[in-house]
């Protein structure tokens, strides 16, 4: 656009000294060309966004009394807390912690043991929470200890193993005896978990309602967020980031690298433990299977999608991922989301506009042509059920083929689709846009005939794809800032 003012080569910010940042890198942001909207948004202080989020979140139970919506809101807050904790370890310190959900589980189980008929203990929550947070932080410290001298990769394997071990131990912890000498004691409830857990009891104030827990989670979240906001700009926060960018240089600059790693690990674990107490309080039952790899990957996807290292990004990532995963549970809603994302993908990715129109029109025409041919040649190919009703379902019935027994053919189509998508990345220009037309139709075919029926697997596949695609195309996530390399 011609009427936009040029970005000054040396904006005012240059004169502000920035501690510990190369000047060229420090001014990188002001040299990046941004649209007008983005520049206006940049002018709003980030605290205003957080405050706005807090107000909107606090109003949610007043706007709706639908229990399901509040429940999703509560879960989203828990995921935001988890993502904030993981952000310290992965986003700031750059350490890959693959046992993170074990700390979450440890917190939940510790709460369950101290406030349930399992051991007959019914402590006050105000007492339990500090104990659990301290114990989880200590556990995180101990897990990180053996790998502190080593590269990040070793930490990844030790923590991954620790996470697995946690699940196994808690799964089999109902018959623990000390080297066979004592009688067997049921410590963790084993596969049955621990049930009948007490509600939160804040010195006599019992939180029993869903709304109560929602507000409790919101308060905890805001406290942790403020803490993170302060840590972000603190000396330790800057030290973590320097450690992430270059551990060797950080060490040479005199930073206590090992201590920084351990602090990051213990803090992340502590927040996970705190989140676990909330989880156990509302659900009143904990099972070790809830704290296995799928949960871990979901938290990672949230962190990566929003942008590791950026507080706003982490919050946005948790919100987007959790709400999308909830929507995926209902086929009717999921299909709308799927087709709208295909549309958005074409509109955002395909350039110039002329080609976007050709791809969209071509896909529509291609679909009608395939439908016509299949219904003429192989009538059973269009006899199957359309998985959803409504406007979209009616349209799909005239455009998409639904074989009467789709599973096998859709499985093969899935494999072909994977190869087709990989092939698309190898070709460029108009050939790619042309090849997109059958690929889009194929993906819609696989979606309608297979994926939409298996929401629990589909969501996990999508999470995996999100991680791969984001890391390859936009490793800084939606709101993260790109790393600037100086050679």
């Amino acid at each position, binding site marked *: 656009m011609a009427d936009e003012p040029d970005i000054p080569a040396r904006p005012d910010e240059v004169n502000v000294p920035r501690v510990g940042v190369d000047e060229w890198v420090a001014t990188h942001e002001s040299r990046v060309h941004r649209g007008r909207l983005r520049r206006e948004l940049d002018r709003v202080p980030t605290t205003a966004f957080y405050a706005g989020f807090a107000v909107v979140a606090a109003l949610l139970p007043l706007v709706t009394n639908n229990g399901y919506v509040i429940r999703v809101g509560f879960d989203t807050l828990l995921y935001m807390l988890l993502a904030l904790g993981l952000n310290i370890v992965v986003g700031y310190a750059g350490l890959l912690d693959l046992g993170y959900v074990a700390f979450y589980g440890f917190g939940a189980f510790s709460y369950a043991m101290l406030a349930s008929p399992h051991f007959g203990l019914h402590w006050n929550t105000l007492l339990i929470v500090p104990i659990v947070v301290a114990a989880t932080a200590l556990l995180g410290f101990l897990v990180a200890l053996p790998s502190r001298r080593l590269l990040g990769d070793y930490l990844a394997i030790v923590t991954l193993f620790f996470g697995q071990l946690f699940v196994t131990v808690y799964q089999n912890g109902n018959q623990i005896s000390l080297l066979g000498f004592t009688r067997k004691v049921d410590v963790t409830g084993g596969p049955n978990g621990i049930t009948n857990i007490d509600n939160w009891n804040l010195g006599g104030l019992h939180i029993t309602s869903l709304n109560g827990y929602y507000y409790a989670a919101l308060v905890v979240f805001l406290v942790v967020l403020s803490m993170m906001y302060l840590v972000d700009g603190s000396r330790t926060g800057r030290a973590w980031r320097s450690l992430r960018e270059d551990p060797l240089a950080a060490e040479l600059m005199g930073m206590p690298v090992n201590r920084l790693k351990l602090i990051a690990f213990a803090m992340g674990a502590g927040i996970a433990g705190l989140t676990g107490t909330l989880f156990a309080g509302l659900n009143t039952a904990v099972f070790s299977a809830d704290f296995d790899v799928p949960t871990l*990957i979901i938290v990672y996807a949230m962190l990566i999608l929003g942008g590791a290292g950026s507080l706003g990004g982490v919050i946005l990532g948790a919100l987007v991922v959790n709400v999308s995963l909830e929507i995926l549970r209902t086929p009717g809603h999921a299909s709308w989301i799927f087709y709208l994302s295909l549309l958005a993908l074409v509109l955002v990715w395909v350039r110039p506009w002329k080609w976007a129109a050709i791809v969209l029109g071509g896909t529509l025409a291609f679909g009608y042509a395939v439908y016509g041919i299949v219904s003429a040649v192989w009538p059973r190919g269009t006899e199957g059920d359309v998985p959803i009703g409504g406007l979209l379902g009616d349209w799909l019935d005239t455009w998409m083929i639904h074989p009467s027994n789709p599973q096998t053919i859709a499985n093969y189509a899935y494999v072909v689709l994977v190869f087709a998508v990989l092939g698309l990345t190898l070709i460029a220009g108009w050939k790619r846009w042309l090849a997109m037309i059958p690929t889009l139709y194929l993906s819609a075919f696989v979606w309608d005939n297979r994926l939409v029926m298996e929401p629990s697997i589909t969501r996990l596949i999508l999470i995996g794809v999100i991680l791969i695609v984001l890391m390859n195309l936009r490793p800084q996530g939606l709101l993260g800032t790109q790393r600037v390399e100086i050679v």
Partner: protein
Amino acid sequence: MNWNLFVTELVAGITHGSVYALIALGYSMVYGILKLLNFAHGDIYMVGAYIGLGIITVFGGPLALTVNVVLMLFIMFLCSMIGGGVLGVMIERFAYRRLRTAPRIAPLITALGVSFFLENSAQLLLGAQQQSYNSFSWANGPIALDHFSLPAGAVISYANVIVIVGALVLMLALTYFVQRTQTGKAMRATSFDREAASMMGIDVDRVIVVTFFIGSALAGAAGVFNCIVYQQVFPYMGFQAGLFAFTAAVVGGIGSLPGAVLGGLLIGLAEAFATGYISSTFQQAIVFGILIVVMLLRPSGLLGRAVIQKV
């Protein structure tokens, strides 16, 4: 002392250890060259096992095999090795290649994503239930049942012999390849210093592709080896096997091929004796304990060289 139990666990340990060693070799090779912890490696092992199952089904299923068992085993290994190798090369090409110069954490997270994608795709396409090789009931020659006896009553089945001998042959072939051929030499050079190797005219991209192919082919073969003894195939089988194999690679000294074999055998034996003498629920804890002890006492692994970081 119960001699019978001891020999049984010893054989089980060496068998499992050979499988872990084959997987660990791939981990170690890839790590040596790219410094990348390839979490998807365990899932290539899973895919290899499923390819073997597919071959059994093609030849009429376990109860009505239409070909000779030896021929079928040969075809199974060939297909699972080629299939695993091609899968590994594809993963490298499409998921990791763009990230060679990215911060270290980016390829690690991508590898997690690939692993998750493969596991759940397998579950979507093939179902979550366990399927079995049923090598006990193979119509012409039940290799898991036929056995020869040792003194003191211990028995070894032919399936165990096939696994141990087969793994040994593959390891010897790999050693020959790495030590004696031109490409092997290029591989060692790349692993030593990638930049210097490329300056000496080594086609690093090609070396990386070959490394992924060989490492993944070994994992594919390991999948079949595991299943002709232990039967069960399921989408998440690669996770624990991959974890144990990676532990084996770290214990032996990551980047060192003899180390990977030694580590694999050690982990396999530890697991078997833990199952036999203590309890099968604690095998994971014992392997984890070995990992921690080795990392505390000898962080570069049993046979690894200490890495000197150059600036």
